[in-house]
């Protein structure tokens, strides 16, 4: 959903171009030094400033706030309402209380989808330690072609998921795929990756892991640049090995970036849909056993036209992501450096 909002934002911000003609600067100039630069001995003016700010700050955030309200909050409220209704295919919601939720908690598909999504998330999260290691390698001062490698790792992230999925679908093909051919060379008989329950979700998650590496490495790369080089110099003088430097300096000082990645990765993993849809295909017999939460939502809302039920699924997804994120924020104080 974030895509749509990012696209909408510039249009929504258009009115702010009129801001320079606003009278605010004049008012402030007339009142003398206020704000952060103001002398501490002027509580009166500080109080007045608070009062006089009036509607202006609101006006400035209005374009952004309007976008959030119109494209996030309002739809969420509507979804919450529709999840309590039986929704006609062509509109017309009839209130049905908690029926959808009652049906949902009794639906085995929900738990299967939740289990699959958790498995996917767990596998994609393995990408973070890998990215930490790769990013620190890329950050070695004497590495040649560093930007070339960076581009290589980042390419899958900027490529369209559907395009990536098409290629991997061919790689995973049981009879004619490259993967099973290579496995065959070393004497392993690969499974039919995308049509074997169990293997299918792992296959999709490996692609998810691979394509998320680039983004993680960019974030971690920025984090690495913030670690002062003298720490490494000092450690080297004290005789610390490369591995010890990595363990005792790099990793602890990267924890803010890692924590950020953890939250982002969990959220985006819970939204798994496009990769799954495109790699497995909608008539794949393993799909009922391999579907993710969002796929379950899609199936109910857009294939089976049960939009009230789909809204209830959406609310459950929202709740799960909300709880998962809140828990992470709570625990990050314990392990994040300076957090």
């Amino acid at each position, binding site marked *: 959903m974030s895509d749509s909002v990012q696209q909408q934002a510039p249009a929504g911000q258009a009115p702010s171009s009129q801001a320079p003609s606003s009278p605010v600067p004049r008012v402030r100039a007339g009142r003398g030094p206020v704000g952060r630069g103001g002398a501490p001995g002027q509580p009166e003016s500080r109080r007045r400033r608070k009062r006089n700010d009036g509607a202006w700050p609101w006006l400035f955030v209005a374009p952004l706030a309007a976008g959030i309200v119109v494209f996030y909050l309002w739809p969420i409220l509507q979804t919450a309402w529709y999840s309590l209704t039986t929704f006609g295919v062509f509109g017309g919601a009839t209130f049905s209380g908690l029926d959808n939720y009652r049906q949902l908690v009794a639906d085995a598909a929900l738990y299967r989808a939740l289990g699959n999504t958790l498995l996917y998330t767990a596998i994609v999260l393995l990408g973070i330690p890998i990215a930490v290691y790769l990013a620190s390698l890329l950050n070695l001062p004497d590495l040649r072609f560093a930007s070339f490698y960076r581009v290589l790792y980042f390419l899958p992230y900027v490529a369209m998921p559907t395009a990536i999925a098409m290629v991997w679908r061919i790689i995973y093909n*049981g009879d004619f795929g490259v993967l099973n051919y290579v496995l065959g060379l070393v004497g392993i008989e690969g499974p039919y990756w995308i049509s074997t329950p169990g293997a299918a979700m792992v296959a999709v998650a490996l692609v998810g892991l691979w394509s998320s590496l680039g983004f993680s490495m960019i974030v971690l790369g920025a984090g690495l640049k913030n670690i002062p080089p003298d720490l490494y110099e000092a450690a080297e003088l004290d005789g610390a090995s490369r591995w010890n430097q990595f363990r005792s300096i790099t990793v602890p000082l990267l924890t803010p970036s890692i924590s950020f990645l953890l939250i982002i990765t969990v959220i985006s993993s819970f939204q798994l849909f496009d990769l799954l849809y495109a790699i497995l*295909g909608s008539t794949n017999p*393993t*799909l009922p056993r391999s579907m993710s939460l969002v796929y379950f939502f899609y199936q109910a809302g857009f294939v*089976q036209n049960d939009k009230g039920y789909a809204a209830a699924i959406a609310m459950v997804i929202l709740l799960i992501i909300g709880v998962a994120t809140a828990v992470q924020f709570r625990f990050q104080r314990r392990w994040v450096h300076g957090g």
Partner: protein
Amino acid sequence: MSTALHRPSRRGRRTAGLATGLAVALTVAGCGDSSSGGGEAAAYEPASSDLSATITYGVWDQNQVPVIEQNIAAFNEEFPDVTVNVNVTPYSEYWTKLQTQGSSQTLPDLFWMNGPNFQLYAANDLLEPITEVVEAGDIDPANYPEALNELYTLDDVQYGVPKDFDTIGVWVNTQLFEQAGVELPSGDWTWEDFQATAAEISQKLSGQGVYGAAGGMDGQTTYYNTIFQSGGSVIDGDSSGYDTPETQQGIQFWTDLIASGGSPSMQQLTDTTADQWFVSGKLAMYFGGSWFRSAITDSDLVGTVTALPLPIGEEQATVIHGVSNVVAADSENKQAAQALQVFLAGEEAQRQLGEAGSVIPAYTGTQDAFADSLEGADLQVFLDALDYARPLPVSANTAEWNAAETELLPEAFSGARPVDEVTAELAERMNTALAAE
């Protein structure tokens, strides 16, 4: 065009739409208030040639746009002041968009409808019946295949005028038959002949990884046909036909085919679909629709492919499906929309469609061009199939039980579970879904 009816892969593009799925679905759907005035509006009156209006014609197949434009040019000779805007939406987004338009009373004046979606729109009063047009003598349903009229009729009221159709046959790679040293079957073959031929070819050409025949997950081209051939049904009145022994036989056909090695396994067919096996020259016989002709035209198989009628079980049968033109019940220019509907249903427009060659026109007597449209193949079998064609099984919410078929039937085909156990569960699921309609 019905060729796109079962092409799930193209729907993959809908992924992009899901990014905004929640918001769009709910905000947009919220705009619709459910009152829609179908049926009772002004009585049908044939348009006079000075009628002036601008109407929209909603379609999903870009390939047919040139011939549609020819149709409209001919239409404008009769009605010079009616402007028709052709609105093309790719199949993958067509139904999502149409549902949104249906919710907000902004449907195109005239648009394409397919079987699986028809009852949903008709039952919600979004379509204008053709009853009065037929009474006025402007459209005669007798000109179109009976099964197609039936497909677009709900509660004895017909809403759609058939535009084109497709039937199912067996596409044959004659070169593989030669290599295997197996004689090409004749047109009046039985299930046993088919099974034996498939197993024999698989066995003789196993070194090359070639299979005799292939099953699949697409009911329209595979198991619906065999269900009808064994005397069964998919929907019987208001309930599922899957719990009858006849229907189970129609399913068993594919289980046997896979068990004998005549077909690749279900897993192989998931990775590489039957049509891909055939186009790659690795499959000797393929249960496929008449629309598959264009896939062959684009391949290097031209000249080595021909078509046979489907094998006969207890009886001879094939599934027929076709697109129809429907008028929106709340169209503001209904008279003009109906005039175009009438024109497109007529012999002149249908002949233009047939000569363009991409689909088989529905109007009896305009279909000859199709039979000779593939070099070295006699496609008359797809036209002859009209005599024993049965409409694609549909209901008000077809997608719901289609999903149950996709989920359960592979277990029967692969032999993982006994056929009667799977079909009993499927019948139960389907009856629940049908009852909810």
